[in-house]
């Protein structure tokens, strides 16, 4: 059998196993095992455990459980609500300020944890009810949180960027640095949209009321629904609650970008700092609380680590059988121009993102497209960021958009259809973000090149 046939067969069998509903980790492993048995010398089967172990024996992988612990510790407290209410006190006067407070709270939270669903549930559980109470439509409220949550994997620390760094052999520090600019860009785009849409919705409510011939005062009170007032002392009083988080973020940033510590060490410091903070400041020392943090951490970390372990096995088989090389050659042989290739890669990643979690996509696809990206002169750091934004889109699109289901879980009274409709504009904004990054790649590359020096 020639390589192309084996490659197609490999892809087919893997897809079949994945859709059988078995855990992704075991599906990848079983598919690799089957093709090892069928097409590779039997010696390889004898060293499967050794191969898996050798791949996990990697200092960079330490970051994953440690960053997960950090996110889980902070996520299990009221911390999300605190960050959010403090930001609201500062922003309440701006039209759409509450929505902005939610977007920013997601961003701050994202800077403390590397996962999108965690960000969503931490901010959304208090944010969504507040937004709806203050007259935001359900769609806008849930859209803000779903999209804001995706910042979790773009703003460092980010598990997705770590995995991309591993798969593409790029510096994690550089990738983290590169995530900041695009993160700010998305925050800006989201904010503009939230303000615009909020004012639109408000005007619509006022117009409807005016048609019913209500008095002006009544209209005002109905449109505002609930009016907040925060004095300067309220704002200042809310700061101490924010302070520990800002300090933690600052420590992480300084340790990482000051060249003090490796990403793994930063993860260790962050995890310890977050756990201590949660225990001391939020008084989470009851067995019940600790148990929740522990089980949350280990479940997520083990899930990711098992996928990593077996996807290494998967790509090992792919490369041994020459599938990686053959598909890379095929891609180069198509003679596509740089941007046409880039476009199709985007489509491909987007489709995969509808079904698979980022960890599996990044580890499976990166080895195939990497040589072509290199040949076309596409900056790998820049591409990592674009890929991450595409993965974010996958998190808020059906059928398996994790964030959608997290929000459905924390706000069960809002219909899934409304949530999905609410996220659509934000998906558009993310595509707009990618286009902006294509036109101005400096948004990604300037910061890392400035710090680490250009290529």
């Amino acid at each position, binding site marked *: 059998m020639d390589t192309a046939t084996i490659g197609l067969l490999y892809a087919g069998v893997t897809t079949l196993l994945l859709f059988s509903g078995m855990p992704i980790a075991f599906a990848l492993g079983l598919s690799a095992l089957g093709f090892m048995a069928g097409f590779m010398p039997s010696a390889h089967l004898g060293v*499967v*455990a050794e191969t898996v172990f050798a791949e996990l024996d990697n200092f960079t992988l330490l970051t994953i459980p440690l960053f997960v612990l950090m996110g889980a510790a902070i996520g299990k407290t009221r911390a999300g609500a605190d960050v959010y209410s403090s930001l609201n006190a500062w922003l309440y006067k701006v039209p759409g300020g509450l929505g902005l407070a939610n977007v920013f709270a997601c961003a701050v939270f994202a800077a403390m944890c590397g996962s999108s669903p965690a960000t969503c549930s931490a901010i959304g559980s208090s944010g969504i009810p507040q937004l709806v109470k203050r007259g935001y439509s359900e769609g806008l409220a849930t859209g803000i949180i779903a999209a804001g949550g995706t910042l979790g994997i773009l703003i460092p620390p980010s598990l997705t960027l770590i995995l991309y760094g591993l798969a593409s052999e790029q510096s994690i520090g550089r990738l983290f640095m590169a995530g900041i600019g695009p993160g700010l860009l998305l925050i800006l785009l989201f904010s503009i949209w939230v303000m615009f849409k909020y004012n639109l919705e408000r005007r619509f409510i006022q117009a409807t009321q005016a048609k019913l011939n209500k008095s002006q005062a009544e209209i005002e009170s109905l449109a505002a629904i609930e009016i907040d007032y925060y004095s300067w002392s309220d704002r200042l009083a809310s700061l101490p609650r924010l302070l520990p988080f800002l300090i933690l973020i600052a420590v992480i940033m300084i340790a990482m970008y000051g060249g003090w510590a490796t990403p793994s060490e930063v993860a260790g*410091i962050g995890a310890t700092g977050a756990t201590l903070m949660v225990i001391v400041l939020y008084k989470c020392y009851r067995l019940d609380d600790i148990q929740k943090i522990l089980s949350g951490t280990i479940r997520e970390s083990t899930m990711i680590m098992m996928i990593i372990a077996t996807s290494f096995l998967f790509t090992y088989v792919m490369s041994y059988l020459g599938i990686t090389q053959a598909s890379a050659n095929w891609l180069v042989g198509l003679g596509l121009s740089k941007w046409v290739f880039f476009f199709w890669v985007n489509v491909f990643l987007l489709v995969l993102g509808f079904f698979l979690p980022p960890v599996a996509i990044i580890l499976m696809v990166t080895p195939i497209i990497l040589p072509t990206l290199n040949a076309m002169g596409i900056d790998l750091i820049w591409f990592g960021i674009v890929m991450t934004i595409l993965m974010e889109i996958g998190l808020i699109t059906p059928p398996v958009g994790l964030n959608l289901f997290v929000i459905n879980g924390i706000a069960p009274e809002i219909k899934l259809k409304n949530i999905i409709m609410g996220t659509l504009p934000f998906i558009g904004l993310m595509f707009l973000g990618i286009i902006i990054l294509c036109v101005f790649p400096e948004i990604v590359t300037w910061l890392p090149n400035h710090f680490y020096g250009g290529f």
Partner: protein
Amino acid sequence: MSTRYLQASGLLLIQAIKRFNILTGYLSAVIVVITALIVCYGVVMRYAFNTPLDWGLELSIYLLITATFMSAAYTQLERGHVSIEVLDQMMKPPAIRWRVLIGDVLSLVFCAFLAWNSWHFFFEAFEDGRVTDSMWGPKLWIPYFFMAWGCTALSAQLVIQIIESVFGLKHQQYSTAAEWKE
């Protein structure tokens, strides 16, 4: 009488394995916390006392590999290993039960092979007394042992889930078994 006795002891055994998997799951989480502390300790020692640890790095890696494998069964018990469940939206409950069962059997094939292979790997390293080539040079059979054990526990958990779905066991039956023992 004897079949009833067998049944009840089988149920109790299943219960015991599950409890054990939950316990090792939590222990693994504690290991992650300990690893975070070790990493911090390493950073402090390097900057404050200028004495980098020669064992910190390796130990933390092996601890995390241990934690990952030792908690794989717990994660399976909680159905925490993500899967693509899109088809469930189109299938009727009996079909979903079949899909889950087939998925579990296929998972078991992979996990059991990995477990068997890891034990093999462990015995080899144990007999040769293999160590890593670092200054610290810990015995390699130790992390290999936990990997093999973890994969075995994971396979056992899958077997339990298969038995449960084949016989349609529910929590109620476990409590009857517990009562019967008393």
